[in-house]
């Protein structure tokens, strides 16, 4: 078959990887950090996973079930769960990420006060549950009730903001792979979170990471669990569809 000359020329110009290709976070890591992320014996975030397993089995009060009491062995029942979050909660119509779903179980089914966003218990449980989906492909839904949340997240991602007037997309779509001081900019997918960051010396949530990017462009930092970051999280998860869950990842 003969291609029209203009199309043939276009094919020659197009690089193998187009700008639209979204790559997993680990592809942008230094060899040392990637090795650390892949070696569970040395991975500092595994401590949080172990603590999460403890909380999973702990009976919160005399007459209340533990997480394991309802869900059994997480290795089976929680496998793949994190790849579907954030999702819309049918009863309330709210968009929930994994952290907020855990808090909902804690309050409604265990009758306990919420752990609180970024508390050690919630980070540990989230890391533990996300770990059960490690290397499985992301599969969030963006149709039906999720559509308005998704649209808002996508708009936020592409909107310039802050005193530096930069959009997420200008760094994470247009400049992925380039250096910004000591960092290599990745595609900014959220699939590694909760992640162990050297800068934090601890595991932290995706919303904590998003707050750092907001601060970086001197924009308003939204609260943990705020609608703005939840919508953004849904867009990021869809953008990463098919990519492997990396949580808990290791990051700079």
């Amino acid at each position, binding site marked *: 078959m003969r291609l029209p000359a203009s199309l043939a020329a276009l094919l020659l110009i197009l690089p193998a990887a187009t700008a639209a290709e979204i790559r997993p976070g680990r592809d942008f890591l230094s060899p040392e950090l990637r090795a650390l992320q892949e070696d569970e014996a040395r991975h500092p975030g595994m401590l949080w996973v172990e603590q999460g397993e403890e909380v999973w089995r702990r009976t919160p009060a005399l007459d209340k079930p533990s997480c394991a009491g309802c869900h059994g062995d997480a290795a089976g029942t929680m496998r793949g769960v994190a790849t579907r979050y954030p999702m819309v909660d049918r009863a309330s119509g709210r968009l929930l990420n994994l952290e907020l779903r855990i808090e909902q179980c804690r309050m409604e089914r265990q009758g306990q006060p919420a752990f609180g966003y970024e508390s050690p218990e919630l980070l540990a449980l989230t890391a533990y549950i996300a770990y059960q989906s490690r290397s499985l492909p992301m599969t969030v839904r963006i149709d039906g009730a999720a559509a308005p949340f998704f649209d808002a997240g996508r708009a936020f991602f592409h909107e*310039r903001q802050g005193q530096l007037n930069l959009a997420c997309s200008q760094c994470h779509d247009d400049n992925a792979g380039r*250096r*910004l001081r000591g*960092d290599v900019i990745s595609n900014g997918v959220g699939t590694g979170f909760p992640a162990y960051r050297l800068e934090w010396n601890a595991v932290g949530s995706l919303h904590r990471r998003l707050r750092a990017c907001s601060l*970086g462009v*001197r924009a308003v930092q939204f609260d943990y669990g705020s609608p703005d970051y939840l919508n953004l999280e849904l867009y990021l998860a869809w953008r990463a569809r098919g990519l492997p869950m990396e949580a808990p990842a290791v990051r700079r």
Partner: protein
Amino acid sequence: MAALILATSLEGGHAFSLEPYRVVADAIPEPLGGRVGDPRRGARILRDREVGNCLICHSLDDPSERFQGELGPALDGIGARLSEGQIRLRIVDSLRLNEATLMPSYYRVEGLRRVAPQYRGKPILDAQQVEDLVAYLASLRG
């Protein structure tokens, strides 16, 4: 990510009024408010991570600066490529030249969205800092 420019607390500041300026073609020919720039201060502002922090995106042949950026053009020899007025407009408001630019507008307050409260109504750099940078960059001719 290290903050592009770290918060220098500006809370409770009063409304900032910018010096008016005149754009001719792709340049601002006159210094902002008639100020005289100091190239040595400019060199510090450019490198300082809490002030200009220009090397987060740009590079410069300076082995003492270990981590430099690669999002913007190298600034070596910029004074030979661009006039002072052209450099000034690019620092003040690159958006006027390229509406898709990544280069922040360092001396502009309007048309911004969701600015953190402590920075609202203020430009990233003041007129003297802009002039110091212009004087420094114009001196890079090698």
